[in-house]
């Protein structure tokens, strides 16, 4: 599988420490020694709270920033020497996108697509999916709501059918229906073999749409895994209502923190569920709930290590 994005020891520090006696605090370490490989055709989630270094990473990939150390390639092009070639093949949605208010939506999309010298082959489908009608696109951008501006941002990033889409907080300002429509758009793009680099702090959407995820903390990569494998390894919370003696769960692989209070048995379940279900065979229970594992727990676990 070819790499759409690679980063080797990618580092970005802001500020200068001209004098060695100067306090290190004056240098902001936005990204430190990041190693990463994103495969072609995958939806890759880049997770971290505000200020973790997500946007810095994106800006390094697109050549807005110059690395302090290390290197990166996008679609085989070096970010320092070939950023123009990179941008010819990439669609980018900046976080909190700013648009030209005096232009109509359609003129703006024409203008931004014209700068690529590519036809807006995906525009009509995107506008249809995101419910941006022709009449809406004829209105000046200044009349658009926040959600409509975000939809414009998505359309301008994807309308020319880029090989790689870099989307910074793409669902910010979208209502739940539009979020769902956007996830469908991503699924379509993925089916066509395109790569999507997706930065977000909304864990549920990353869990829903991404194949793999990187978690970044204070500019350092703390996890890089398949979403499914990450979730498999999470502890799930189990509750069962007893109508008789409690089943013996001590020693069952993956089961821990067993507690029984007033006929309610709770425990944690990790990994394969089959030994647990076998242990329940014939148990006197009236109700059983196994809460699905969520990325949130994994995320919080990585961040808990910090405190």
């Amino acid at each position, binding site marked *: 599988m070819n790499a759409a994005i690679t980063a080797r020891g990618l580092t970005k520090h802001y500020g200068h420490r001209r004098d060695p006696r100067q306090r290190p605090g004056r240098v902001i370490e936005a990204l430190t020694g990041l190693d990463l490989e994103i495969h072609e055709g995958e939806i890759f989630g880049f997770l971290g709270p505000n200020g973790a270094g997500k946007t810095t990473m994106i800006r390094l990939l697109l050549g807005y*920033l110059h690395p302090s150390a290390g290197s990166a390639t996008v679609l085989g092009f070096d970010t320092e020497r070939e950023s123009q070639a990179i*941008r010819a093949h*990439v669609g*980018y949605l*900046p976080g909190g996108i*700013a648009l030209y208010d005096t232009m109509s939506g359609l003129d703006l999309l024409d203008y931004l697509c014209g700068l690529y010298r590519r036809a807006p082959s995906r525009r009509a489908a995107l506008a249809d999916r995101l419910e941006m009608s022709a009449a809406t696109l004829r209105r000046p951008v200044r009349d658009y709501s926040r959600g409509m501006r975000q939809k414009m941002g998505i359309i301008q990033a994807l309308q020319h059918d880029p090989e790689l889409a870099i989307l910074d907080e793409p669902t910010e300002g979208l209502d739940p229906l539009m979020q769902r429509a956007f996830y469908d758009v991503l699924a379509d793009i993925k089916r066509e073999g395109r790569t999507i680099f997706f930065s977000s702090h909304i864990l549920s959407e990353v869990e829903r749409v991404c194949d793999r995820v990187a978690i970044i903390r204070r500019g350092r990569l703390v996890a890089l895994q398949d979403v499914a494998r990450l979730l498999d390894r999470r502890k799930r919370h189990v509750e069962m209502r007893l109508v008789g003696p409690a089943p013996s769960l001590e020693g069952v692989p993956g089961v821990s923190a067993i507690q029984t209070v007033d006929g309610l048995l709770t425990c944690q379940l990790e990994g394969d569920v089959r030994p647990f279900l076998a242990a329940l065979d014939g148990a006197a229970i009236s109700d059983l709930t196994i809460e699905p594992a969520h990325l949130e727990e994994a995320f919080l676990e990585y961040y808990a290590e910090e405190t």
Partner: protein
Amino acid sequence: MDRVLFGRTLRAQRTKLLIVLAALAVWGALMPLVYAELIDTPLGAQFKQMVDSGIVPAQLTKFGGGDIFTLPGSIALGLIHPIAVALVCVFAIGFAAAAVAGERQRGTLEVILARPISRRTAYRTLLGSLIVFLCLAILAVLAGTVASSAAFGKLGELKVGNMPLLGLNAVLLYTALGSVALAASVSFDRLGPALGIGLGFTIVSYFFEILGSLWPAAEPLQPLSVFHYLDPQSVLDGKAAPFDLVVLAAVTLAGVAWALAVFPRRDLAAPS
């Protein structure tokens, strides 16, 4: 130059451009009118007597190197007048300072530079647009001047063949000012500092030139001003100094060199 960015820049400025061009054309037409009124009327003759008698200081009638009692001098006075300077500076300073720093402050530069345009190409396109605006501005004022001179029967007093050189000299002056403002624009993330540097350079430069023309003791300051290298009366009289053009071209090149060195190397962090 990027054709799409150039077209968009021209379209975005068209209303402002039309207003400024109309104002400059009217201003250019005004100078021959004032001159004709001074020369051809008894009131003008009385005023000239007052000046000749020394009641009115001669420097005031030769503001900025002009002379209201000759047509080339009147035109020179009009070209260096604060109103003409302010009108042309709408583009030389206002457009140039906002071209990059303004877009950056609004956040729209992100969207443009996400496209396959190098920063050098973006800069060259904006510089090209600036020069087009300045050429049109100077053309408007000179066209107004020639039309008005003809309307008042004074065209014979004007060596029209020298007008293109005057236009070139004026365009070079404002391009020099604009290149400084554009260099400031690519160097800052906010409009305020870029505009401050562009305006500051222009105002100080203008002040040195005018102060030197009104107060002999301040004459040594004049060569420090870019306005010193536009002498419309000499150009119209056929006594243009090529050195003036060289100095203005050198200032322009310095601004361009700064911008081409600084802009591509700058980090463009996320707008705050």
